[in-house]
């Protein structure tokens, strides 16, 4: 596994995609020189973007025009969105999801980085064996631990609370530990050695020197975790059962039947999906660089 993962970061050594693109220099071919390529790219990107456009378009159509399948509706309406907010406590669900995601992000960033620091910078007996164990838990399918984990939270009386949805993050997460450890290897030893000579302890070195230097990686971890928790469907499905505690994912899934009864199922479902997606789009465009490089260099999602 160690060599497998080591192979996932070749570009890190070669420099970021951005740097390479700059290196391409002024003599790079124009779009006209490469027109067959751009025609192909345009075709494929249309295939990938049209469903997205259709999602937004359907959500803005008057309900009686939804089944026309026309690309140009007679008018753009926001009624579907108003209907979604009227029939379901969407704001409440969004708040719930945001609270869970923020707690999850903060806890996983600090716990994973501390553990990664230990593995990257401190020598102790059994370190490489323990690290191999960290990696192997990444490949362990969640289904195996699902039921006993549920029983633990059940024993703790935490079913139908938000605890099971984030508190596991207090103990670090295998993949982020691996990723942050890789980044911490790049922190110059001289810096931490000098701090040691000045009498700084391990925790102070972690907090004052290592953490600030790996900030881009911390941001990437934060974004990934936020996205993961925002999307997570199975965990809230297992643990939450009262409607006012739902997350957006769970709430949205409970919509379908309800909307069917209201008759304008698809327009409302699409509107709800757009509402659910917008925060992720914002997150993406705000942190595009971290997103792209984080995924590219670490293989989080496969």
């Amino acid at each position, binding site marked *: 596994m160690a060599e497998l993962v080591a192979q996932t970061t070749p570009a890190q050594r070669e420099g970021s995609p951005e740097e390479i693109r700059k290196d391409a220099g002024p003599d790079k071919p124009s779009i006209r020189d490469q027109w067959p390529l751009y025609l192909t790219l345009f075709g494929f*990107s249309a295939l990938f973007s049209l469903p997205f456009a259709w999602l937004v378009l359907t959500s803005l159509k008057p309900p009686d025009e939804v089944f026309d399948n026309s690309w140009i509706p007679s008018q753009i309406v926001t009624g579907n969105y108003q209907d979604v907010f009227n029939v379901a406590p969407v704001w409440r669900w969004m708040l719930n999801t945001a609270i869970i995601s923020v707690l999850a992000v903060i806890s996983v960033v600090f716990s994973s980085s501390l553990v990664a620091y230990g593995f990257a910078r401190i020598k102790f007996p059994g370190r490489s064996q323990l690290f191999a164990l960290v990696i192997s838990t990444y490949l362990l399918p969640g289904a195996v631990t*699902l039921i*006993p984990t549920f029983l633990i939270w059940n024993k703790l009386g935490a079913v139908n609370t938000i605890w099971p949805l984030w508190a596991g993050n207090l103990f670090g997460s295998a993949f982020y530990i691996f990723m942050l450890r890789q980044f911490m290897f790049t922190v110059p030893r001289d810096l931490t050695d000098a701090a040691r000579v000045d009498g700084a302890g391990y925790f102070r070195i972690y907090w004052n020197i290592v953490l600030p230097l790996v900030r881009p990686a911390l941001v990437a971890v934060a974004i990934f975790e936020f996205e993961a928790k925002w999307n997570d469907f199975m965990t809230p499905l297992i643990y939450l059962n009262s409607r006012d505690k739902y997350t957006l994912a769970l709430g949205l899934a409970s919509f*379908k039947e309800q909307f069917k009864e209201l008759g304008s199922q698809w327009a409302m479902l699409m509107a709800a*999906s757009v509402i659910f997606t917008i925060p992720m789009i914002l997150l993406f465009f705000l942190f595009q660089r971290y997103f792209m490089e984080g995924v590219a260099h670490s293989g989080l999602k496969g």
Partner: protein
Amino acid sequence: MTDIDLPATSAIPGQKRRRLPHEAVAGYLTISPWIVGFLVFTAFPFFASLYFSFTKYDVLSSPEWIGFENYQRLLTRDRLFPIALKNTLVYALMYVPLHIVTSLGIALLLNEAARAKGFFRTLFYLPAITPAIATAYLWVWILNPNDGLVNSTLRALSLPAPGWTVDPFWTKPTIVISQVWSMGAGMLMFLAALQGVPKDLYEAAKLDGAGKFERFRSVTLPLISGITFFVATVSTINALGVFTQGYVMFDKDGGPENSALFIVMYLFKRAFGSGYFQMGYASAIAWVLFLIILIITIAQFRLSKRWVYYEQGSD
């Protein structure tokens, strides 16, 4: 993490004696959150679910040891489990190769483009940031057999319109399409790998008279094989654990003729479905799934020795 307060953080200026704790103690302290989490949320549940799989357990009364009964029932008398198993394997066999080919293909195109690469990269990545539930609904709508965009287009062109979500033959391809649409992460990984292939190797191959295809086959493919292996392994594990798409797109029951019933959905039903709470039986399902994934992953690692190229002397 402030509870880990090492004495050295309060080093007094001017004091010459090193107050650093023993290095090993500091090491164990920093990784202690992970150790606790591993014991409580991985090691214990791992062995506990193995134990439960040999018991009858409904949460209310304590587990009752029944030996291999769960496994026997699962593999010989359960009508739904073989269906779920077959569906899961067929889904993975369709999804994994298509995912690799699509994400690598798009990455190759992007890698060739000298301009507007960032723009196209964003277009191809957007589906990947769309939440799974939204993706599921979007595709159920687009592939709606009667009124969906795809079928009305096909009909307009006088082409056959499949019953995507209602025909048992088409339910798995429906999920595969929605998942391949979200291939952005795989594409980015391949793109990074392609950009890491040294340019001089291509030049050398060109001088040797290698054509475009030959260069792809003998330079590109071996040099990105590490990433290909990673994407293949992780997407196989993900595909065998498919849950959300089946559950949401086909109203949690497994779709027409159980054609969209997958192992984890069945496990979920037995464990948490109303009236079930069969934790022992569900644990046995989890362990069968785990063994299947383990065998496939080990096979992939074994096979990888034949086709994955590891850079000599790296790290």
